[in-house]
């Protein structure tokens, strides 16, 4: 490779070349809007959120309580049944302290996304759980720890719409 071929193709263009017109361009804005059918499992889960409940569903074969709920257990390939209301509490499986937006602009305030393992869903090598944001981490975001116990902070009932954001965030459970 390096020995045989001296010249490699690929022409680098500076960003400035677009603004000063030295390189031509054309733009497109696809209109990609969707209305995805929620179906049985997610539909019921969202209805639960609206009612202020986190619901799981049970696999009759392995006994796992699945969150997010699905109509089939991916390990047993068995259809699930028996909805369970979970306490909503859990612990932080992992987290990040995010200070830039997707386009690399700095955020005004850090976000702390985390994977929450929910109580009542522990199984062999897996836990039911959700990605969500953390809040009320005191005294500052850096105090967050893996394993920290957390609980959901719900929107008031009248503001809930049946969405994951009906939970505003999870916060540490105060000791005692």
């Amino acid at each position, binding site marked *: 490779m*390096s020995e045989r071929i001296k010249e490699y193709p690929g022409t680098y263009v500076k960003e400035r070349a677009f603004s000063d017109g030295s390189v031509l361009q054309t733009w497109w804005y696809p209109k990609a809007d969707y209305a995805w059918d929620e179906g049985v499992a997610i539909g019921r889960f969202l209805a639960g959120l609206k009612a202020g409940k986190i619901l799981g569903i049970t696999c009759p074969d392995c006994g796992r309580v699945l969150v997010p709920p699905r109509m089939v257990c991916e390990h047993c390939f068995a259809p699930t049944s028996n909805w369970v209301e979970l306490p909503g509490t859990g612990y932080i499986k992992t987290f*990040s302290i995010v200070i830039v937006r997707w386009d690399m602009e700095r955020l005004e305030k850090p976000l702390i996304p985390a994977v929450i393992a929910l109580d009542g869903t522990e199984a062999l090598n897996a836990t039911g759980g959700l990605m969500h944001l953390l809040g009320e981490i005191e005294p500052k975001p850096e105090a967050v720890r*893996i394993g920290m116990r957390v609980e959901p902070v719900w929107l008031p009932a009248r503001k809930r719409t049946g969405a994951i954001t009906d939970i505003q965030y999870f916060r540490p459970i105060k000791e005692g």
Partner: protein
Amino acid sequence: MRTRRVAVVGAGMTKFVRRSLETADELSWQAAKMALDSCGLTLDEIECVASGSAPDAFDGAHMKNEYLSPGSGAWNKPHIRCYVGGGTGVMTPIHGWYHIASGLFDTCLVICEEKMSSCQPHPQGAFLTIFDHTLERPLGPNLLWIFAMEMNAYMHRYGLTKRDLAQVIVKNRGNAKHHPCALLGEDIDIEEVLASEAMAWPVQRLDVSPISDGAVALVLAAEHVAHRVTDKPVWIEGCGWSLETSYWTNRDLAYPLQVEQAARMAYDMAGITEPRKQINIAEPYDPFDYKELHHLEGLMLADKGKAPEMTALGITRRDGDLPVCPSGGLLGVGNPIAAAGLMKVAELFWQLRGEAGGRQVPGNPKRGVAQAWGDLMQVGTVIVMGIA
């Protein structure tokens, strides 16, 4: 084994650049043309095309493989694209392999392209919609979030520090100095990595591979054609791929089980029973520094949690006992998703033929493994190649 043997007989690639003048199909043509020229074959002699590319959102074209088909040499030829997110770059030569191993074809052009710069204002925008549309996107996640969380889980499980991980960047960028297509080949101080701008703890700017435009192509041939075309065929000995659950929040993120599953499948096919003894070079997928370590463990080339120590001991240096990412990896060469994965396979081809120039690992390596990974930290793709 009654399966037909398949060899890599040619390779080509473009420079990986932040933003290319070439259109996506022109990049594909450049890499494909070079691959053909490298083994003296013409497009006429190619019987089919196996292509791979990651989200359509990057190049900005729905049914991307149709859009790329002229540059992929697919005019009046059978052409199928495979797609497993970030794992695509190593899946595509596997996809090419079964085209020939099936007995349907004798030659195959394997091509991966990504023009990420078409996605504006920042290519990360293409990753905003990889999350579950109902339960995750409303929270506004991006790719950094989940990698940061996986990195954190890995560091926490084994008590690793940022310094343990950052040595991978120093090594890979250094290796990339000798890669003529590299975007970031340079000597870099570990303190500079540790001091780089924080993005999403524990991820800092220099932990991440650079976004780029580029294309890579290989020519595959059945045994009888391979011997006619070259006296240095590199054989595809094993292929493996595996996809974990999409419910990533339910998984153990500290260990890439899907990579292990894919590796076991590839090793079985290649007859490898002791990978650490039987593999001379590794090109694990390194879009972030911790990923190289994570994947060395998944490939069973390091004990769980021990890859950082192996790196500290210099074992994974270009002149170490197990050179890892001698190409410079994604961290050094660049990360045009699918093309970056195929770049690793091309690197094995060049290394095993002794044609890697300043990057050549010493000791006449006989066998190498390349691996890619992607989706929601969920797919593993593994290829084993050798000259035995």
